[in-house]
């Protein structure tokens, strides 16, 4: 496999794991805009353990998940007392605190960053992404997954049904933080270098977009969302110059035109995001959509529908 495709595959796998980390709280009704903070915790935990103690990746990467998960569960207790936009701000503020602390820590390299000795190729992120996806699909098929989705829809009634809402939300938030940290650990060893500028607010916004635009009702959403947003810039990189050349030809310019500016990709990404929010506010993949697909596949249900 070429280095280019290996790189893309690694990023895609890391983004899918990261997206699942945000999906779990969001599916429970908790917007988490602090994704980059949890990813940074994992990335620095792995980087530091690898650089300072020479620990192998099969130790550093689980460590990244554990540390971010533990901190996530701890801060979930105070942070989940807030609601709506205040919760969004609180998670955002948490990520800023993490970034600020790392920036001011000499041990963690401050603004200079840390280099990570142990390098992993695309196989490990991809294997982890597959395992994490299977885990989330399993989780959403259990009664715990059911109570998560119920809490998302109506907290008062879910509580009256006998569900401990706080336990459900803290668990989902903590598990999500662990997955974001896991994505961070994979990141550190894939890029062999971590610097705090790489875990900024835009990263938190993007991963939340993967989840919201992919759809929060099924475990398919984060895969679709992360894949779409990871691959789109690459596709645009390939096709935009051709598109511009074609447009130029149409208006009568025959000589070769300069390839379009980088910023055009962001513009197109932004426009697509707005369009998706307008036309698929519940995300690309919805329950109803999966239900329809299943109806088509199962002949007995189809028969039941005809006779009904």
């Amino acid at each position, binding site marked *: 496999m070429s280095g280019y495709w290996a790189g893309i595959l690694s990023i895609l796998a890391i983004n899918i794991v990261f997206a699942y980390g945000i999906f779990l709280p969001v599916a429970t009704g908790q917007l988490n805009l602090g994704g980059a903070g949890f990813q940074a915790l994992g990335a620095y935990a792995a980087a530091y353990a690898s650089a300072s103690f020479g620990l192998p990746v099969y130790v550093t990467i689980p460590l990244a998940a554990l540390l971010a998960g533990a901190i996530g569960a701890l801060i979930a207790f105070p942070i989940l007392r807030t609601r709506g936009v205040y919760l969004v701000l609180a998670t955002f503020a948490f990520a800023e605190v993490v970034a600020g602390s790392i920036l001011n820590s000499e041990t963690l390299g401050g603004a200079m960053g840390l280099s990570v000795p142990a390098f992993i190729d695309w196989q490990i992120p991809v294997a982890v992404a597959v395992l994490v996806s299977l885990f989330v699909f*399993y989780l959403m*098929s*259990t*009664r*715990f997954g*059911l*109570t998560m*989705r*119920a809490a*998302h*829809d*109506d907290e*008062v*009634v*879910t*509580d*009256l*049904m*006998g*569900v*401990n*809402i706080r336990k459900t939300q803290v668990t989902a938030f903590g598990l999500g933080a662990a997955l974001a940290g896991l994505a961070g650990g994979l990141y550190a060893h894939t890029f062999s270098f971590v610097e705090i500028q790489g875990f900024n607010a835009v990263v938190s916004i993007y991963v939340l977009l993967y989840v919201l635009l992919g759809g929060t*009702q099924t475990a398919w959403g984060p895969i679709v969302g992360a894949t779409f947003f990871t691959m789109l810039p690459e596709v645009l990189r390939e096709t935009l110059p051709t598109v511009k050349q074609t447009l130029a030809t149409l208006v009568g310019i025959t000589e070769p035109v300069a390839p379009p500016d980088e910023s055009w990709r962001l513009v197109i990404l932004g426009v697509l995001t707005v369009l998706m929010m307008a036309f698929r506010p519940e995300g690309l993949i919805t*329950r*109803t959509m999966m*239900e329809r697909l*299943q*109806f088509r596949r199962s002949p007995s*249900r189809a028969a*039941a529908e005809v006779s*009904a």
Partner: protein
Amino acid sequence: MTTDMLSIEGVSKNFGGLSVISEVSFSVPEGGRVALIGPNGAGKTTMFNLVSGVYRQTAGAIRLRGHDISNVPSRKRVRLGMARSFQNIRLMPHLSVIENVMLGQQARTKSLADMAMPLSGSRWRREAETLLGEMGLDTYPGEVVATLPYGIRKKIEVVRALAAQPQLLLLDEPAAGLNQTETASLRDFLMGISRRGVTLLVVEHDMGLVRSLCDHAVVLNFGRKIYEGSTQTVHEDPLVLEAYLGPRHNVAQGAVTNNGVAGDAA
């Protein structure tokens, strides 16, 4: 002597300065079928919210089989054997019909294993399917609730409450929006539930249903209890008539029919 399933003892509820329930006492005997009626705004739904623990009463005690449950958190009350439905349908819109019913089973989970086992193909799922079948709702198990007609959703609310296998079932206007045939089949269904020993407390405006289902009625008006007694004579009570029809009406005018104490009560 039988113990009462539910006793409401001098219960009051204020919202800020507004008194919504004032010193109401009544009890529901074990296995009984009691109607809680009264004009709109009388405080019936608020009473359900106090019993189920959505709100805490300002004064008085609520007892379940003799035990004061006032300090029991709402999520634990269902585990003591009570379940309720909601007047304004409160199903989970993004869950399928069967998932809503399986959520209703939550109070019967015992261990972590119950939470960690996949639901598809489980005994929980088979049981929910059976329960839906008994209500004649088995054509829709996989459908997302949000898109279903009102009458169907109203019935799913009852099934979800039953999935907890409660000893005390609180139903808030279960027949609202159902046609006559559906109401009759709902009554037969609830009678069957009652024969299995489940105690019923029902808020309902359809007096036909009230009389054919319940033997005992408690009437609230402006948060006070104005009547407690047989459902067969409730429409003859002067205070009840006044509550529904205003002070100038009385029995002699014969405004009360067999089909309803008051047409405007819905």
